[in-house]
Structures are given as structure tokens and as C-alpha cells.
């Protein structure tokens, strides 16, 4: 790869097709980075004793992409050595055990990419306008992240 083209990049994608760990991690690989850290959010098959059939995600897509861009900007301010950031989130129906979100970050040394990945998923859960519906056998439920930034603040 031409090193002059290896400028820090953010790879943000919301899509309905199955996510690929290989694809997302390859996006952030960089010749001067010794670390790629990864987070994969998968779907559990149960909630409070109920069997989860599948999940459905929807998003305010244009705003979600903007909020994710802000997270990437925050990461680069807090951890300036971070090289590339990739965040892929699935929309629509997600079957059990498949990934709903994959985050990958590269940096020269491991501490920054590990911390940045954690910041990324925690902040996504608090600020990005994406919603998850759990489908059970007889009913469904719109989930609410405890991290949601206005939760319990408005009454």
C-alpha cells in the first residue's frame, strides 16, 4: 500500500446484510499499527426467561451516521494515535447469534485501540438514534439502553 495514502479514515456503514468480522478488521489494518482491537455485539436468544426469536433494528439513518462521525472525532481527540476506525451496524432483521454491530480500531500500540473501542460502543449506546425490537414467541418489546443519555433525566 502507498503509505502516503494511509491517512486516518473512518469507515461507517449501516446495512441490512450480514456483517463480516473479516471485512471490518481488514478496513482498519495499517502498516504502522501494531494493534487492531475489535468489538462484536451479537444477539442473545433469551431475555427474562422468554425465548427471543430474532431482533429487528431501525435507525434515523442520516442522524445516526452523523452521531457516529462525532464519536470518531471524539476518539481522535482523546486518543490521537488512533489510525483507522470502522463501525458497521446492521439494520432490519438480525437472527440469533449473528452480529448486530462490529467496531474495529487500529493504533500503533494496543492501549489506545482497546480504550477507543470501549468508548465507541458505550457512546453509541448513549447517543446514536438506532432502535432494537426483540421478537418473542407471543409478543415483542422495544428495548431501551440504560446508557441512553436522557434516560431518567426527564420527568
Amino acid at each position, binding site marked *: 500500500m502507498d503509505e502516503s495514502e494511509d491517512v486516518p479514515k473512518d469507515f461507517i456503514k449501516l446495512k441490512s446484510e450480514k456483517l463480516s468480522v473479516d471485512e471490518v478488521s481488514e478496513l482498519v489494518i495499517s502498516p504502522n499499527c501494531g494493534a487492531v482491537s475489535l468489538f462484536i455485539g451479537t444477539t442473545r436468544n433469551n431475555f427474562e426467561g422468554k425465548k427471543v426469536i430474532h431482533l429487528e433494528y431501525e435507525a434515523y439513518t442520516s442522524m445516526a451516521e452523523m452521531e457516529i462521525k462525532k464519536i470518531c472525532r471524539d476518539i481522535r481527540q482523546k486518543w490521537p494515535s488512533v489510525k483507522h476506525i470502522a463501525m458497521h451496524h446492521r439494520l432490519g432483521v438480525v437472527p440469533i447469534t449473528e452480529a448486530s*454491530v462490529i467496531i474495529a480500531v487500529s493504533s500503533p500500540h494496543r492501549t489506545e485501540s482497546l480504550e477507543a473501542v470501549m468508548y465507541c460502543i458505550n457512546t453509541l449506546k448513549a447517543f446514536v438514534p*438506532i*432502535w432494537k425490537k426483540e421478537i418473542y414467541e407471543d409478543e415483542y418489546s*422495544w428495548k431501551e*439502553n440504560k446508557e441512553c443519555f436522557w434516560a431518567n433525566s*426527564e420527568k
Partner: protein
Amino acid sequence: RRSPGRRRRREAEAVPAGHGGSMRCQVTVLYFARSAELAGLRSESVSVPQRLTSLQLWEEIVKIHPRLAVIRDQVIFAVQQEYVLLGDQLLVLQTGDEVAIIPPISGG
């Protein structure tokens, strides 16, 4: 599309909110998740006063879709893709602005 740097939320002036010269505008209201189920649709064009508080804006929308009242304590707005809590914040809206009802989020 407007340039990102343009300031849209000006200092509140002496005109009381909700009465600002009866000037109204057509905004696009977007409904998501539970709010889309309660309203029965995902988007519509709504006439609202140009100057009003975020709480008054909520009340305008609930007049059209009374079933939304049950989620009042959980939702916030996104006006032109900036989050706004329901309350006293003065909004200055323009025709074509996007107002989204944001129920508690659950991404990731």
C-alpha cells in the same frame, strides 16, 4: 441543504413563544420505533408556529396523534438532527425543517 455553520438557534427575544406574530411553517415530522407504532405512520408534513418551546411543539404533535401522550416522559426531539429535550427550550423553526420523535434508543 443549509451550510452547517449557519447559526439557527438565536437568543430568545421579547416576543412570547407560541405567539410570535402567528407566523407558522411546514415542518417534516419523523416517527421512529414505538412512536411510529402509536402515530401509525413514519413521516408527515405538519404546520406549526415558527417560534415555540420544545414542549409546545410536543403538544402540537399530540393534538394530531393523541396516542403519543403515553410516551411523553420517555421521548426527546431531534430538530435538524440536533437533540432537544422536551421543555422550555425556544425553537425557531423554518419550513422544511426536520423534527424527529426520538424514543429511548437501543443501538449496539
